[in-house]
């Protein structure tokens, strides 16, 4: 495509970006989509999630800022779609931000939804349902069970969850950088093989 060609319309911008992607870019994007399916979504395969991100960009439901590189933009959209999908699945009841709880008389909200309706609750808008939570719990358990006898990987998982930097693992637990990186790779490869994406959420 000529450099001076008009890329202002979203389809042309996408087309241009897609042909620029290297095989390694695609591979990383595929893996990213695969990780986003962890915890169960209604998307059965990484490519399905990627296509959804493309479709939403095309039809204007997602805005791709001109200054944002395609790679970083699209993985953020995939992540956001997967997160929203998980929340949707977790919805027992969906409450909008302006659905303020009733506080009067017999109709007063006395259950878990009572705090909804406040701006700080608007991001979630949902209540967890047992089924969706179970899916997340199950995936986490599969990972933890697999590594239950591997103290190094378990330590790294704990560090990831608690946002502990590698240098602290080294000083507090004697874990070398090499051991740390090897454990992260073990974890990554296990997830990639164990959760290829094709399963029922």
């Amino acid at each position: 495509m000529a450099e001076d060609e008009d890329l202002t319309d979203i389809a042309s911008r996408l087309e241009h970006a897609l042909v620029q992607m290297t095989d390694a870019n695609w591979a990383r994007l595929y893996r990213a989509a695969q990780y986003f399916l962890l915890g169960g979504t209604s998307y059965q395969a990484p490519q399905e999630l990627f296509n959804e991100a493309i479709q939403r960009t095309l039809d204007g439901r997602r805005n791709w800022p001109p200054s944002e590189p395609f790679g970083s933009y699209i993985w953020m959209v995939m992540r956001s779609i997967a997160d929203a999908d998980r929340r949707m699945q977790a919805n027992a009841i969906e409450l909008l931000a302006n659905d303020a709880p009733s506080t009067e008389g017999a109709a007063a909200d006395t259950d878990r939804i009572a705090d909804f309706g406040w701006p700080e609750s608007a991001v979630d808008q949902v209540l967890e349902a047992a089924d969706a939570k179970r899916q997340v719990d199950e995936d986490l358990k599969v990972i933890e069970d697999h590594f239950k006898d591997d103290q190094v990987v378990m330590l790294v998982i704990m560090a990831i969850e608690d946002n502990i930097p590698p240098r602290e693992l080294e000083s507090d637990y004697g874990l070398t950088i090499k051991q740390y990186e090897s454990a992260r790779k073990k974890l990554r490869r296990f997830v990639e093989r164990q959760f290829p994406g094709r399963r029922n959420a």
Partner: protein
Amino acid sequence: MSQIPKNDSRAKIKAIELALIDDIFKVPEAELEHEFAQDGLNIKDLANSMRSGAMELIMQERRKKLAKARAGMLVQSISKSDKRRPSLDAVKRVLAELFQAKPALAVAFRQGKSQSETDWYSLWDDLVELGEISEISDEN
């Protein structure tokens, strides 16, 4: 340092997810290819499949937009031609005035006798197009 509550599985999964994303962008290309091969996946095939799938979505969206634009133009041209036609009585009145002012036009229309409704409207459209009559409504 922020800690995730022990029972928050979703936050834990998300933290793992982000760590994996961070790691995958550091994996060298040759190693990526090797890992994909280990998993029975060919990177080239995968890239082609993802690219062509996305391209197909782009084509679909373009076809949809084109069809929508065509439909819009059709509606616009129909409503435009409807709008510039007043009632038959008004057409006859304006044309009679025009024929008086420009007799040559009346000759071309056989002096306006025994014309069908279609003939009147057809002449009206022609004269509007030629600029002999400006668009009017019944109120004019």
